[in-house]
C-alpha cells in the first residue's frame, strides 16, 4: 500500500507563499492607485469648476453660459455657509466608480461666488449660466448650475417682462431649458414644469411685473417650499435651487450688499471734495445694516432699493 499521498516539495511551498505575497502586493498597489486616480479626477474636476467660476464676472446686464463635461457620471455638491463677514461657497465633486460615489477631500471654497443649484446636481454634462444681481447696485454675478439630465419646461411667460426673460433663456441655448406652451409642458413626465400663471405645476412662480418681485413654490416638494425674490436674477435662483441653498446664498448676498453700501457711502464722501455730490448716498444707511434671516424679509427693503434707483441725482456712485 502506498502511503506517500501528495508530496509538495519545499521549493514549491516557498514559491507559492512568496508568489501569493507578490500577488497580494500588486493587487493592493493597483487598488490604492485606482483610489488615488479617482480622487485626482474628482479634484481636477473641482479645480476646473473653480477656474470656470473664477473666469466670469459680467460687466453689464448680460447672461452667459458655460458647459461643463465630466469624464464620468458625477455629482457636484453645492455647499453654502452663511456665517462670517461674507459667508462661504464650497464645491465638492464626486464621480461614480464601480457603482459607488467617490469621495475626495479637495473642496474649493470661495467668499465671492454664489452658486444656485440643488444640494447636488447629478449627470455627465452640466450647464452653468451667470446673471448679475443688482440691489440696486451690482452685488455679484449669480451662478446657476443645472444638470443636462434635469429638464425644466417654462410655460406662461406671457407678459412683456417675462417675454424678455424667455428670450434670454432661449438665447442661452441650454438643452435642458424648454420653452413650450403650458399644455405641452404639463403633458410631459420627464420635466419640471415651471408655470407663471398656473398653480398646477411642479414649480409655480407668482410674478409681479410692476415691482419685479414674487415668490416661487416647489409643488413637487413635500413641504411645498416657498421662497421670495426681487428681480430676474433671484427669480432664476429660486427656480433652480433648493430652499436651503437659496436662503443661505441670499443671506450671503445681503452681507455683501451691506459692505458695498459702506464703500459707496465712503466713496460719496471722498468725491465730495471735488464738489461731486450724490443724492443716492443719503439712502445708503438703510442698506448698510441689511441682514436677513429669510427671503420673506426681502420685501421690507424693496421700497428702499426702488427709492435709491429712482432717486439718482448729481454724481452717479455706481
Amino acid at each position, binding site marked *: 500500500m502506498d502511503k506517500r499521498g501528495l508530496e509538495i*516539495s*519545499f*521549493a514549491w511551498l*516557498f*514559491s507559492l507563499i*512568496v*508568489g501569493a505575497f*507578490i500577488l497580494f*502586493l*500588486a493587487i493592493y*498597489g493597483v487598488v490604492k*492607485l485606482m483610489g488615488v486616480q479617482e480622487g*485626482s479626477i474628482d479634484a*481636477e474636476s473641482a*479645480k*476646473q469648476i*473653480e*477656474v470656470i467660476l*473664477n*473666469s*466670469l*464676472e*459680467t*460687466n*453689464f446686464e448680460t447672461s452667459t453660459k458655460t458647459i461643463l463635461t465630466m469624464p464620468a457620471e458625477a455629482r457636484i455638491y453645492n455647499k453654502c455657509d452663511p456665517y462670517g*463677514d*461674507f459667508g462661504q461657497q464650497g464645491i465638492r465633486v464626486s464621480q461614480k466608480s464601480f457603482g459607488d460615489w467617490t469621495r475626495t477631500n479637495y473642496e474649493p471654497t*470661495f*467668499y*465671492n461666488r454664489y452658486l444656485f443649484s440643488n444640494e447636488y446636481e447629478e449627470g455627465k454634462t452640466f450647464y452653468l449660466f451667470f446673471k448679475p444681481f443688482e440691489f440696486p*447696485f*451690482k*452685488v*455679484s454675478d449669480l451662478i446657476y448650475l443645472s444638470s443636462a439630465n434635469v429638464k425644466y419646461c417654462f410655460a406662461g411667460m406671457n407678459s412683456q417682462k417675462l417675454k424678455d426673460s424667455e428670450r434670454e433663456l432661449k438665447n442661452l441655448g441650454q438643452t435642458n431649458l424648454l420653452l413650450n406652451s403650458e399644455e405641452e409642458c404639463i403633458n410631459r413626465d420627464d420635466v419640471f414644469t415651471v408655470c407663471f400663471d398656473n398653480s398646477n405645476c411642479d414649480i409655480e412662480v407668482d410674478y409681479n411685473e410692476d415691482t419685479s418681485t414674487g415668490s416661487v413654490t416647489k409643488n413637487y416638494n413635500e413641504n411645498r417650499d416657498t421662497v421670495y425674490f426681487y428681480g430676474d436674477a433671484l427669480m432664476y435662483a429660486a427656480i433652480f435651487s433648493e430652499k436651503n441653498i437659496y436662503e443661505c446664498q441670499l443671506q450671503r448676498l445681503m452681507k455683501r450688499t451691506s*459692505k*458695498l453700501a*459702506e*464703500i*459707496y457711502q*465712503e*466713496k460719496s464722501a*471722498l*468725491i465730495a471734495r*471735488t*464738489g*461731486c455730490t450724490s443724492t443716492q448716498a443719503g439712502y445708503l444707511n438703510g442698506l448698510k445694516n441689511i441682514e436677513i434671516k429669510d427671503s420673506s424679509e426681502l420685501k421690507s427693503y424693496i421700497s428702499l432699493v426702488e427709492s435709491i434707483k429712482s432717486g439718482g441725482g448729481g*454724481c*452717479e*456712485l*455706481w
Partner: protein
Amino acid sequence: MVNKKAQMKIQQMAFMLVAVTLFFILVGMVILVVYLSSLRETSNILENEKAMRLASKIANSPEFSCGEAFGAKVRCVDLDKVMVLKQNVELYRNFWGVDNIMIIKIYPNEFDGVDCTSENYPNCGQIRLSDSDISSEYSNYITLCRKETKDGEIYNKCELARILIDPREVDE
C-alpha cells in the same frame, strides 16, 4: 548531496523572487513618479489659468469696477472706490483668494512709483491694497477712472493702468 542540491535550488529561487519583486517595485515607483508629475503639471496649469483670469475678474468685481458711473466702460476700475477699499482691506483679506492687488498707472503717469495714500490722493502713481510687495506677473490692462474737477467743473478723468495680482498657491 541531494540535500545540498535542493538547498541551492531554494536559494536560486529565493534570489530570483526577490529580484522579480524588486523589479516590479521599481517599475511601480517609476510609473507613480510619472503619474504624480503629470498630476502636478495639470494642477499648475489650472492654477495659472485661474490666476490669469483672476486679474480680469477682480477688475470687473463690484468693489473695483466703474459700473456705469463713468459711462459704459469695459474693464474699468474706479480709483475712488479702490481708495475706500484700501482703508477697509482687512475685511477683504481672503475675499478674492489673492495676497495682494496693485494698480499701476501707465499713461499718463506724472507720479511714477508714488504710492497712493489718503494724504497724497490723487497725486500718486500706484496703489497697493496691502503694504506687502507684489511678486507676480499676473496682470491685465485696465482703464482707471476717478472724479476730478477743473475750473469748478466736474469731469471723469480716465487713465491707462495695469492691475497686478499676487495669487496664492501658484507654483511657477
